[in-house]
């Protein structure tokens, strides 16, 4: 069984079927790139994985644990929702940093809040916070932002903000990182710095699902590529298979438009 298993996911908004029977599997440490034109359901698929949307149908399994199963009751699916969510880290197209917090505070906030639920928190508050700060600083340094830790989001470039957002997601130590067009809102000259930290993450063995229009990145880094159209997976394969030898007409048409 693969590390991440997505089986027969469907999502309807009212009468519109946005996802139709989407299934795929991803091995631990691999990078999956999802490509497809706008409106094809890529964002909705990511949002179903971390329960920002509730799938209408289907099953999601991570590391053998079933997180969601539409056969279960609503209560069963909502049980431990927060800890289920924490299997995934999410990086949004629009960064969504918290504007009132510095880069470091953005990275450490949720971890500190979670630490309060630790039964030993009161006793070891100082050490726990120090450890979280330490980890936050390390993550930001890893993102090349050691000098920017105490800056507020509005004092950072888009590329820097997105790297803070990546550090913030990593701080919760997720098993799988989800990226929704992480470079689409960036000026072209800032795309590279974000892709570079993502490549570094992939090399370190992070399991990643990346929705992207950066075909160069997909080609270089993806172990597996999915092409989506109209809420369905049209074609899936290795980067080589999809980019060099697409089998489906729709894939060919999409690639010829975008490349």
């Amino acid at each position: 069984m693969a590390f991440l298993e997505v089986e027969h996911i469907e999502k309807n908004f009212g009468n519109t079927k946005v996802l139709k029977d989407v299934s795929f599997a991803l091995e631990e440490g691999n990078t999956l790139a999802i490509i497809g034109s706008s409106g094809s359901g890529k964002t909705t698929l990511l949002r179903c994985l971390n329960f920002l949307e509730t799938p209408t149908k289907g099953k999601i399994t991570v590391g053998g644990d079933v997180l969601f199963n539409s056969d279960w009751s609503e209560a069963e699916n909502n049980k431990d929702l927060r800890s289920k969510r924490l299997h995934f880290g999410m990086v949004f197209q629009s960064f969504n940093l918290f504007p009132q917090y510095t880069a470091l505070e953005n990275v450490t906030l949720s971890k500190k809040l979670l630490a309060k639920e630790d039964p030993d928190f009161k006793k070891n508050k100082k050490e726990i916070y120090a450890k979280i700060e330490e980890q936050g600083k390390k993550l930001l340094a890893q993102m090349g932002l050691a000098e920017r830790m105490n800056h507020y989001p509005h004092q950072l470039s888009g590329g820097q903000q997105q790297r803070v957002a990546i550090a913030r997601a990593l701080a919760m130590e997720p098993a799988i990182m989800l990226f929704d067009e992480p470079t689409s809102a960036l000026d072209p000259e800032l795309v590279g710095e974000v892709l570079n930290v993502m490549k570094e993450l992939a090399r370190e063995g992070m399991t990643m699902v990346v929705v992207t229009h950066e075909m160069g990145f997909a080609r270089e880094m993806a172990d597996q590529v999915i092409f989506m159209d109209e809420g369905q997976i049209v074609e899936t394969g290795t980067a080589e298979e999809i980019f060099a030898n697409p089998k489906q007409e729709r894939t060919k048409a999409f690639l010829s438009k975008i490349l």
Partner: protein
Amino acid sequence: MFLSVTLALLEGMGTTFQIFILTLIFSLPLGLILAFGAMSKFRPISYSVNVLVWIIRGTPLMLQLIIIFYGPGLWLDYNVWGGNSAGRLTATVVAFTINYACYFSVIFRGGIQGVPVGQREAGEVLGMTRSQIFFKVTLLQMVKRVVPPMSNEIITLVKDTSLARIISCYELTFTGYSFMKAASITWPLFYTAVFYLAFVGILTILFNYIEKRLSYFR
């Protein structure tokens, strides 16, 4: 003469300040409730709140004041406010509270809806609880959005208190005016203006301070 005018105006100022502060105390929470009402998914509630806000914001406060003060007496044949000055003050505060709560509700609603959903979603994805998201993420952003329009409205309230004169509430403007009527002198009117300017000046300084304290982020 100057001393007696000063003392009289100070007394008027006292009433003005009471109208001001009581209106704020009641209309701020009521405004928040109305804002949530207007955003309610239960249609009858949001619809009624929107109609109320539309009526109150679409008619003069002076008219509302007159209806609230004289209306009950004429409809019920019984003056619920009583005939004394305390009754007039109560009627004034009731009318002002309803009026300002409606204006505040629109401001609160804008502040709440102005925070992008992405902020809440970012919190959810990071495993925060609903209350953590509200208190640690969205609340301050709402406050920041609400302060500038709120300070405008509150400064308008200072000057609107003079409308209470229409139901013979002895507030600041009424006091200045009574000197003109009794003694045919105009300088107490200008002196009255100084009281308002001082009041508004202090509020302006206060709001500027708050805005500045919140200007470290965008």
